[in-house]
């Protein structure tokens, strides 16, 4: 379900794309290429695979332009395709992914273990390169099902409902995974930095 304003924007953008309007295509790429790249590189950690995901997501949209029904916005549709393509890459590497249901059954939260206040450490002792590496390492340790939700909700700041539509889960599950991801990442950064407090 999308709201009326988004529906109208989707419809007019779709009409322009269907008639071959190059400016509309450039706008679509400008609006979404980096966003779906961010999701793919966050999930895959591999430049080549992430580029493939971006390319194949747009190619699929180009192929489907004439049959696209517009029940979701073009952006949500692109994100969803990119998410599924990224999961396909992960499954190809590692055919046995933990079942989502098994992970969801575990309702325990990541209890904080390290209680040092490291909030001043990044500014004081860490340069930008090291900071980026630390954040990448922390996020790489998150289970994929939490990682995607964290990227969509925290970094791209999508709504709970849009994130749910992209990942194919309930809004409640989005909220739970987002919360767990935050606590998990807080703990990983605390492990890295508590000794420098």
């Amino acid at each position, binding site marked *: 379900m999308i709201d009326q304003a988004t529906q109208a924007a989707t419809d007019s953008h779709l009409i322009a794309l*269907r008639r*071959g309007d*190059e400016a509309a*295509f*450039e706008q679509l*790429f400008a609006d979404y*290429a*980096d966003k779906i*790249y*961010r999701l793919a*590189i966050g999930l895959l950690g591999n*430049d080549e695979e992430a*580029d493939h995901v*971006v*390319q194949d997501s*747009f*190619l699929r949209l*180009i*192929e489907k*332009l*004439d049959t696209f029904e517009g029940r979701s916005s073009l952006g949500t549709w692109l994100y969803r395709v990119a998410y599924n393509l990224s999961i396909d890459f992960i499954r190809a590497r590692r055919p046995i992914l933990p079942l989502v249901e098994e992970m969801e059954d575990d309702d325990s*939260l990541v*209890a*904080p273990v390290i*209680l*040092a*206040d*490291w*909030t001043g450490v*990044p500014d004081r002792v860490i340069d*930008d390169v090291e*900071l*980026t590496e630390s*954040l990448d390492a922390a*996020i790489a340790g998150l289970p994929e099902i939490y990682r995607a939700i*964290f*990227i969509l909700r*925290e*970094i791209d*700041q999508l709504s709970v409902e849009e994130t749910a539509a992209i990942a194919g889960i309930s809004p409640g599950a989005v*909220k739970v995974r*987002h*919360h767990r991801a*935050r*606590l998990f*990442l*807080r703990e990983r*950064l*605390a492990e890295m930095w508590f000794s420098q407090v």
Partner: protein
Amino acid sequence: MSMTCEQLLGYLSDYIDHELDEELAADAHEHMATCQNCRVVLDTTQQTIFLFREQGRRVIPAGRRERLFSRLHDAFQRRNLISG
């Protein structure tokens, strides 16, 4: 009724996102006024969120972005020729 550390942990994201109802928010606030550990967990979680929001917005490196756009633009033009 005062909130426990475990309850606070469960509500932490809702507290940060200002999604708790007034009564629960007041309980959480009251708990953190006296619980140093929970205060640190709140501050470091907020700092975690801030760092990822600031640093996490990476984009496709320019050269690769241009190549991707060029390939996709070609595919879009081919589609236009076929359906045109």
